């Protein structure tokens, strides 16, 4: 069983088709139940039916509600399990790692709560739980996957808005769904995070949206910050040399 899981060749992911989401929040509840995620506080926001607000240390699935003139938009957001994951790149302890399923998971027994992953994530997903000082986010139900089960949210979703499976298959299914919606006249339908050419090398959890990403609280063109890291180290190298040069100059004038 474990052996089978370890030799599993394909990358898995989520395809969240928001066009059939009914906003029931079964995913939020299933996630909390299975993963034992603590209470995130009940907040009446007076903006919509949303009362979890955003993804965070204690909210690993978040259902967004957008009330527009003639329609409701609903979308269940989650960690994108990026191909090039900034959180993982910058984690100094190695607590964040890439699993055999090509997902991104925090090891709670290693994280020392340095908090660096938090501002590094271009989607604002991961956060530090101040009560226990560690960083938390969706694991794509790593434990369930090792047991051959699909993640709790996908299992609980009554409309199949959340689909789990091999990423290639999901991408094909999403392309077909998009074509179908466009043929039916839903011109505003678009995929988000499906392309391996985007700023994070493609998301392991991607979406079909009915409006611009920012309407759902998603960044329109996220880029993994470490893409520019070689450039940043070069500028720092220049600054370090400048510092040494400046100190040398300070002493040149006044040799004793």
């Amino acid at each position, binding site marked *: 069983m474990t052996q089978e899981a370890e030799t599993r060749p394909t990358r898995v992911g989520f395809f969240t088709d928001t066009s059939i989401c009914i906003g029931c929040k079964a995913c939020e509840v299933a996630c909390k139940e299975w993963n034992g995620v603590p209470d995130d506080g009940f907040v009446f926001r007076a903006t919509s039916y949303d009362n979890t607000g955003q993804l965070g240390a204690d909210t690993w699935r978040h259902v967004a509600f957008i009330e527009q003139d003639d329609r409701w938009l609903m979308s269940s957001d989650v960690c994108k399990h990026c191909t090039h994951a900034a959180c993982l790149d910058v984690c100094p302890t190695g607590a964040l790692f890439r699993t055999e399923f090509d997902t991104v998971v925090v090891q709670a027994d290693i994280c020392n709560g340095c908090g660096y992953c938090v501002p590094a994530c271009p989607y*604002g997903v991961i956060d530090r739980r101040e009560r226990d000082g560690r960083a938390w986010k969706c694991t794509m139900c790593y434990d369930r996957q090792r047991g051959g089960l699909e993640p709790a949210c996908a299992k609980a979703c009554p409309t199949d808005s959340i689909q789990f499976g091999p990423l290639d298959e999901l991408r094909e299914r999403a392309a077909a769904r998009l074509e179908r919606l466009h043929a039916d006249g839903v011109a505003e339908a678009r995929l988000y995070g499906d392309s391996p050419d985007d700023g994070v090398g493609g998301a392991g959890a991607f979406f079909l949206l009915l409006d611009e990403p920012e309407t*759902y*609280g998603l960044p329109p063109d996220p880029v993994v910050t470490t893409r520019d*890291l070689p450039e940043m*180290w070069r500028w720092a190298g220049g600054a370090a040399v400048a510092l*040494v040069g400046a100190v040398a100059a300070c*002493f040149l004038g006044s040799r004793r």
Partner: protein
Amino acid sequence: MRAGRGGDPAVTVPEAEFRSYYGQPVLKPPVWHEPHMPVYLYLGGLSGASSVVAAAARFSGHDRLAFAARMTAFAGAGLGSGLLVAELGRPERFLNMLRVFKVTSPMSVGSWTLAVHGGLTAAGAASALTGLLPLAGDAAVMASALTGPVMATYTGVLLADTAVPAWHAARREMPFLFAGSALASAGAAGMLTTPRAEAAPARVAAALGAVMETTAAAIIERRLGLEGEPYHQGRAGLLIKASRALTLAGGLLATVAGRSRTLTAMSGLAITAGALCTRFGMLAAGKASALDPKYTVVPQRDRATGRRLVAVPDQEGGPDTP
């Protein structure tokens, strides 16, 4: 959407139109606390630049300045490490920082550098204080002149290597800003702890560092568009303004501070206060930048639209090509 503050003539960015999810932030703001993180950034820079000053002073025969700078380098690294550990969510796990070494993580590079630098500066200080093993002590100081510049500049990469728009956009200038500020801080500390007759190089360092820091800050201000706005507004704006005034005043005073103790004290304290204001201001600006979705959405939307217009000029009306 909030209206921009119109007071600052330096801000010429037009009010941006954008959509968001009920005005909520897209990003999570940095969780780092005050005063831990900004004071660490100050102490790390102070220690790094001081170790370079200590080495140069040792070899040019400025023995009292060399001793003072050696002690400052040690104290900065020691106190800074304490603050860094206290900043962790799980301080008892601080050794996990040395579990792996990753160049993709400026915090990993910084932790290793701090560990080595801390050890070297401690050895240098111990040798100078006890008079034991003077050659080994000097060798440690020489080696810390290599880790020191990393200490003083990696923090720029630390902040820039995030999704925070105000930080990431300033990635070129940030290491120079920190290096300049560190040099000025080390100069100020040298002035305050060394007899005036021997502190001439420290005064030059203070003045040069102040110029370098102010120049880097001015370039950030000019080069960054919308992303640079948080540096001008609110609490961050006040701190950065205070930092600029204190640093420039302290730097100017440093050029004449050789004349009296009062001038020396005024200059050294102004520069130190300015360097602290810089660090608090940078953290405040980063938080403000992450909390307003405008800074995330508008530049990304412009980028995405520009690219799509190039690829599919007549995309209006047709289905979106993702």
